[in-house]
């Protein structure tokens, strides 16, 4: 459905005895570290990432017969890797979806009471402080990114899935709902909660450390 195919423009039969112009033997040296980093941040698991890199090269090799010269190896392999990662998320999602989707709304009231008074105004202790930083400058701060990643990892798994589908797959909201088997209002609530938590986490751990 959302699978990116290697560009068909390049798919051509190879004459017999013709040597590859792409040299698969160089792939491991050239690309494996970069691909591994790309994968490991997404799947957050070294072993899974290693396997995905290996599968990528093997899948690439499999379809290499279809390539003639000038194949854009790297971006083409990246596409394969990206598909492998998406497949991985999808498998994981389908596997876990049934338990998690029913729990989303159950404890909304107690969740929001951590942040807001019954009338909808901020609780004094949860109300945002001034961070005194601009959006452009913050990106230069490696430290901020580290806390960002930490806070991201502390969010419930459902948010992680939404985040993956949104940022990595770049899916529109209605497809995210379809993938996760939730209603749009479920999705909005998940996002609202994630943002509140994320912001609070950053303020607590990064700003007031």
């Amino acid at each position, binding site marked *: 459905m959302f699978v990116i195919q290697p560009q068909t423009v390049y798919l051509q039969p190879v004459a017999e005895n013709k040597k590859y112009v792409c040299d698969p*033997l160089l792939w491991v040296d050239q690309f494996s570290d970069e691909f591994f980093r790309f994968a490991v*941040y997404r799947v957050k698991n070294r072993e899974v990432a290693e396997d995905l*890199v290996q599968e990528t090269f093997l899948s690439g090799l499999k379809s290499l017969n279809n390539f003639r010269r000038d194949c854009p190896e790297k971006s083409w392999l990246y596409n394969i890797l990206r598909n492998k990662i998406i497949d991985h998320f999808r498998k994981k999602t389908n596997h876990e979806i049934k338990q998690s989707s029913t729990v989303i709304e159950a404890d909304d009231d107690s969740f929001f009471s951590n942040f807001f008074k019954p009338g909808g105004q*901020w609780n004094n202790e949860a109300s945002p402080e001034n961070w005194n930083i601009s959006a452009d400058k913050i990106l230069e701060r490696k430290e901020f990114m580290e806390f*960002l990643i930490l806070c991201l990892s502390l969010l419930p798994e459902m948010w992680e899935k939404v985040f993956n589908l949104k940022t990595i797959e770049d899916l529109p909201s209605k497809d995210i709902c379809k993938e996760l088997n939730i209603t749009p209002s479920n*999705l*909005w609530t998940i996002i*609202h909660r994630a943002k509140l938590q994320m912001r609070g986490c950053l303020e607590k751990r990064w700003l007031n450390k």
Partner: protein
Amino acid sequence: MYKIMLTCKQATFYSSIRSFKKLSFVQSIQLKLHLMMCKSCHEFDHQNKIIDQSLTDFIKNDHLISEESLSEEKKSQIESAVKQRINKK
């Protein structure tokens, strides 16, 4: 009938989902109005943007800035898997 003034809870809701969903005209006016008058929600909205931007940046660049690499062991394992596959052909 709806109230034109949002509560902070509602305002943070609109601010949060804004990057996923286009707000209606009325909703965006309501949000703007609230942000003008509420310092806390104004901060929230600003920080929200920082978080969104950083997350996008993180996803786009993380593999370039990170220092992680494959173990040599795994590398040679992949290499021999590739060789094996080539020889099969």
